[in-house]
């Protein structure tokens, strides 16, 4: 075994969120209620019994937020290369192909323009089901293009994060997506446009350490894990029992790191309000 001080300092990890015990994805991990797909969708994928927020895939999220028919996708054709010819237990190329088949997405982020309650904005929405929402070259590039589209149109950018962090399989280039997206936010801000950042479960590692934290306004969904290092890594390093709400949105609010926790039914009107406030750049 290697020393703890070596292993545990890494911040990127796929398993950041304690995965709910592998029941049916429509079974509430908090109260055990089970829902049909259409029931859950009608409730915006929030448990009608206990309020648990189920994960939302990128396209479903866009449906929930954007005015019907307003979303125009951009850069849908971007695909990851495999610059390191990366092979762990399986080839990165294979993982990518599998993720694309499973999700119907080219990578872990979907971008495009839309309106929310008639307020124009650019959207950049992550999808945790594509390789844990990890950020590699494509996600970084899509984010940068979303910033550029927003700046060109003079409208705010709304991001919904759901990610375990940087994509290890792209090595140092994945890490470079942190400064890349940070530079893109700076350019966006200089053009006078706002970044409204919504953090869904989970927003960890490289996401929290780059654009997701740089919003003019930071919103979080209830119960979302928002930590730089994941609970497992922190527990291993410090050998301490973690607080029950370690890294959760609620703890982050208390410690001053987010502006508000917004329940999903209020997310669309809240974003609309913020777009009215920040919209005229």
């Amino acid at each position, binding site marked *: *075994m*290697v020393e703890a*001080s*070596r*292993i*545990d*300092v*890494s*911040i*990127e*990890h796929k398993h950041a969120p304690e995965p709910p015990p592998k029941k049916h994805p429509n079974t509430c991990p908090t109260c055990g209620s089970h829902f049909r797909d259409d029931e859950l969708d009608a409730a915006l994928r929030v448990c009608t019994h206990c309020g648990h927020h189920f994960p939302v895939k990128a396209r479903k999220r866009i449906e929930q937020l954007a005015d019907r028919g307003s979303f125009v996708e951009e850069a849908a054709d*971007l*695909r*990851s*290369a495999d*610059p*390191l010819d*990366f*092979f*762990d*237990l399986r080839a990165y190329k294979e993982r990518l192909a599998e993720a694309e088949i499973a999700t119907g997405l080219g990578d872990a982020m979907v971008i495009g323009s839309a309106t929310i309650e008639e307020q124009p904005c650019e959207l950049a929405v992550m999808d945790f089901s594509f390789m844990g929402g990890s950020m590699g*070259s*494509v996600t*970084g*590039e899509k984010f940068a293009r979303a910033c550029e589209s927003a700046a060109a149109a003079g409208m705010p950018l709304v991001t919904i994060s759901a990610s375990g962090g*940087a994509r*290890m399989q*792209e*090595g*140092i*280039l*994945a*890490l*470079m997506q*942190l*400064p*890349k997206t*940070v*530079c893109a*936010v*700076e350019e966006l801000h200089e053009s006078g446009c706002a970044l409204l950042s919504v953090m869904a479960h989970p927003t960890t*590692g*490289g996401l*929290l*350490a*780059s*654009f997701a*934290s*740089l919003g003019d306004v930071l919103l979080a969904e209830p119960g979302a894990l*928002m930590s*730089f*290092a994941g609970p497992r*890594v*922190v527990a291993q390093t*410090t050998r*301490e029992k*973690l607080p029950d709400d370690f890294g959760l949105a609620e703890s982050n609010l208390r*410690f*001053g*790191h987010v502006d508000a926790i917004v329940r999903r039914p209020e997310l669309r009107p809240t974003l609309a309000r913020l777009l009215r406030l920040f919209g005229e750049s």
Partner: protein
Amino acid sequence: MANDAEIRLRDRLSKLSGLDLLRGARLSGELERLKRQLDRIEADPTDEEIWSKVELARHEERPYTLDYVERLFEDWFELHGDRGRGDDAALVAGIGKLEGRTVALVGHQKGRDIKERSNRNFGMAYPEGYRKAMRVMEIAERHGFPLATLVDTPGAYPGVAAEQHGQGGAIARSQAVMARLKVPTVACIIGEGGSGGAVAIALADTVLMQENAIYSVISPEGCAAILWRDAGERQKAAAAFKPDAAHCLELGVIDGIVPEPVGGAHESHDEAARLLGAALADAFDELENVPQAELRARRRQKFRAMGVLA
């Protein structure tokens, strides 16, 4: 891929040869060094060579930030504290004269003996460390001092308090401050360039790596534990994600490699410092020729272009 890197290096070589601002001795040293780098890239490093870099980057006699400061800076004055909560000893900051120029410096600092290691938290900074860094960057900006950063950390500290104090946000904001600076900035990875904790202070106009430094998205052990489900597979992991300087140069992540004494920087702190000092001074000389208005735009464009698409 090697072709791109070759082209980059050859391009740089030809530019340097035609450049008369670089001082004689150093220019030939630079040429020599780039030629060596070129040779090295033409011969792709083996898995064993990569692992030996990891070991050298972590060598316990390797010079740390303050070892370089002591040898390179005149009138050094260390600045302390984040003006909010504390003074993080894992990250040092200050100002001093580097070859006659007042320069602000920010760098991770590991400890040499057991007590200092613990005091320096093995070079793993808390958000307080990054807030101190931002504060000193703003002093640099205000007074037009160029900024040098020395990166040497296994990663930002993963602890409960660190999270509660906003580790992720601090790393993001430190990068944002660097993206905003109008002064010239040079970063050098001098040991371990571990993940977000490293890149927090490495969003620079010129990013250098010492010959035996590593720069990576995750530690080899962390990567092995997750992808191989066995931390013991760290050599395999390192070979797979290639954290060595040659590969970082190839991938366009860094702008140059700083040579070390034969056997590694730990073999002679003085010689390692001389080589680092020359590289920093050259980098600042070059950046001085960039019109101030362009500097920041170029920096952002450089990072904007990073990544490889299919």
